[in-house]
């Protein structure tokens, strides 16, 4: 069943469950229009498909069958499927969470799931993932990234930074660090399986122009894992 949820900044989030068969889209969106018609009229909505892939046919069907008739405007199309994200971007559609105020930062994005190979999350703000980030998955956040599961995929924290505007406090936190690369701002840390903190709880940050891995929780000045390879 499709749910409507209020968000900050007068945005309405329309959550489409991943287990809802796409054949039922017409009838389910019809029900949403019946029950939430007054909320949708004039509202900015985020269409949240989770990890579901979105086809050209789905986009056009939703625009003509739901978005335009309801009087809503789409602030973002959210999917973790990287191929669908490319498709939406090529159509000029926004695929990252909208800020409550135009140009401002978003709140933290909390995902209670694991990301599979080929899935990608982009977010303007902090990201917290309670599951694993598998090898081949990507997370790009303008803020910090925390992974409570095992980290095998690619994280890029502070992805909008670089140069003078880079936030020196941006960090990546992982409870089980098994990634071969981590990116913070304009720096890339290439990591090795033979490192003593492999598989451990770590914090990665940028210190003296390079990505530094430290055990987490850490005492300042102790537990440093060493400065890793850095690429500007």
């Amino acid at each position, binding site marked *: 069943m499709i749910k409507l949820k209020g968000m900050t900044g007068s945005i309405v989030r329309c959550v489409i469950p*991943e287990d809802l068969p796409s054949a039922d889209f017409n009838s389910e969106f019809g029900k949403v229009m019946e029950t939430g018609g007054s909320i949708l009229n004039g509202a900015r909505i985020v269409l949240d498909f989770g990890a579901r892939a979105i086809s050209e046919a789905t986009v056009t069907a939703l625009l003509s069958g739901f978005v335009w008739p309801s009087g809503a405007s789409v602030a973002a199309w959210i999917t973790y499927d990287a191929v669908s994200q490319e498709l939406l971007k090529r159509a000029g559609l926004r695929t990252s969470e909208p800020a409550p105020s135009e140009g401002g930062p978003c709140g933290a994005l909390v995902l209670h799931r694991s990301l599979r190979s080929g899935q990608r999350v982009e977010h303007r703000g902090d990201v917290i993932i309670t599951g694993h980030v598998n090898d*081949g998955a990507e997370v790009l956040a303008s803020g910090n990234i925390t992974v409570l599961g095992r980290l095998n995929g690619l994280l890029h924290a502070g992805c909008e930074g670089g140069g003078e505007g880079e936030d020196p406090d941006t960090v990546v936190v992982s409870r089980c660090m098994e990634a071969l690369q981590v990116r913070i701002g304009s720096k890339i840390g290439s990591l090795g399986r033979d490192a003593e903190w492999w598989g451990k709880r770590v914090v990665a940050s940028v210190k003296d122009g390079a990505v530094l891995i430290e055990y987490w929780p850490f005492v300042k000045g102790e537990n440093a894992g060493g400065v890793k390879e850095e690429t500007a």
Partner: protein
Amino acid sequence: MTPRVIVVTSGKGGVGKTTATANIAAALALLGNKVVAVDGDVGLRNLDVIMGLENRIVYTLVDAIEGNCRLNQTLIKDKRVDNLFMIPTAQSKTKDAVTSDQMVSVCSELRKDFDFVLIDSPAGIESGFRNASAGADEALVITTPEVSAVRDADRIIGLLESMEKSPIFLIVNRIRPQMVKKGDMLGVSDVLDILQIGLIGMVPDDENVVKSANEGKPLTLGDGAQAAVAFKNIAARITGKDIPFMNLEVPKKGFFARIKDAFGGGR
């Protein structure tokens, strides 16, 4: 019973999709089900060879789709088992010879006559995989305990989930318990921790698999081989039977065997 259409897929090539399709299809037929194994790998057909039916091909799946014959004319009956059939694909065509819609209608047609339709998918995530999966309700994902195969399986599972296939079960193929014990190979629990889907079978690395493939006789048509038992167990679990998983742990060696190893005789 409601007919079930299952795609056998993996992402990575060479992990045992075709072997698994042939063996599970034969095992399901031995359990009394009417089964057809469909070669969905247009242009690189292999299922006919593994099942030993290559000399009986007259029409292929692509012939039926192009209207050169009826679908039932492509069916090859396996004479060794009652109720086991195969549909070969074309070797001289490319993946573009079949569309998703055509595969959906082929599967709808086969549902009328069979309890199980097993589709052997090509490797990759492009049109060949998508077409092979289009008509299926369920999926069996095959992986070996290697990092690259597991990553590709993870990708495929994500795609199958977004294609609304359910249930999706995992088969871990070519397990070498000795290597797992030494820490040189991922264990099944490691693979499950990454892929987070239900396990339906663990198949040990068994040289009889290569032998049977070369002979064109699915292992499950014979007895004894460890891999044959594993594939038969998978078929039984598909039909809903609660079969315990095989113990693939390395047996502890006795005193004399350890002495022999110490003097280099155990290699």
